[in-house]
């Protein structure tokens, strides 16, 4: 996804700002009766994406779990901008986690983590 544009005279690699990968940050609420760990969230998202879009689709989403708060059951996910519709559909399709009924509800989406946290604190 990173595209190297040119190497400067100092030898460091410079990447054009326009060519940087763009991400979206999603705040989601995990709706489940059980106590879930970070790896359960990651596993559920990967499984949902792979089920709906296959391994090729899953390879494009650039998914990363930024933060998960067990108390409030809220998580912040990061995905690539291009794969946002895929990720939104996938997380909405989750019906089970650890073999028990569960769901993800998208709360907010933002382009930067800072803006997302700002939006979250406002609501």
């Amino acid at each position, binding site marked *: 996804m990173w595209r190297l544009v040119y190497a400067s005279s100092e030898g460091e690699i410079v990447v054009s700002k326009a060519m940087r990968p763009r991400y979206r940050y999603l705040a989601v609420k995990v709706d489940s009766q059980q106590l879930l760990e970070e790896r359960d969230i990651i596993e559920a998202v990967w499984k949902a994406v792979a089920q709906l879009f296959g391994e090729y689709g899953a390879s494009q989403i650039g998914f990363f779990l930024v933060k998960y708060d067990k108390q409030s059951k809220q998580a912040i996910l990061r995905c690539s901008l291009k794969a946002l519709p895929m990720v939104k559909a996938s997380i909405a399709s989750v*019906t089970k986690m650890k073999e028990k009924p569960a769901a993800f509800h998208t709360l907010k989406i933002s382009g930067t983590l800072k803006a997302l946290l700002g939006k979250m604190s406002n609501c």
Partner: protein
Amino acid sequence: MTKFVDLHLCVPLWDIEQSKKMIAKSAELGYRLVAVPFPPSVKREEVGRVQKICDDIDIDLSTRVNLAPRSTRELLSSLRSFRRRFEVVSVLCTSKPVARQAAKDRRVDLLAFPIAETRRTFFDGAEAELASESLAALEIDMTQLLSFEGFQRTRLIPILRREVAIAQHFGVHIVLSSGAVSEHLLRKPKDYASLAMLFDMDSSLALRALSDTPLNIVERNRQKLSPNFVAPGIRIVRRRDRSV
């Protein structure tokens, strides 16, 4: 602010606690109106119980009946008996004659098709043309999409894609409803819109199918069921006081 509507919330009428949980969850997820399917022979007290739950939670309730007739005669007889008792009438089209009759009958609000059986999908061009003239909308239950997995879902998605494409081509309204039987199958309207992209429904159309389209159906029927309704476009605005 957009008023989101879930026209098919299958609450268990025998379990008040579970019904309360599901209706509360709907309200929490941003729905302002829910249509609960009742059996055709429902008593007023049962409707009253659900109405009370909705009043407590501050969400609007609409009554709905799901008809699954085996013949056109049965459909017409059911419509005669139940149309004036429910605000929303949905017909599950299990045969071609029933599908055609339901599509051209102005008393039918929603056309549902048994999607689990791929050979029994009767929503084609002719059906859509009839439906577009009679204002019947195509209903898509999102529970099927959520509860199916693997090969079943792989078969379901192209059927939905085809139905949505036909409906759009012929100008048939589409209604997305949850069809949820438990609160874990409920999703936010925007999450449903995200899922609808799987069958090529763009976000704005999907959100309309969750707000304006179902709301228009309910409002139109409420007007018709009102004692002041005379004919489309004509209603009684004031009655003469007989005591004078």
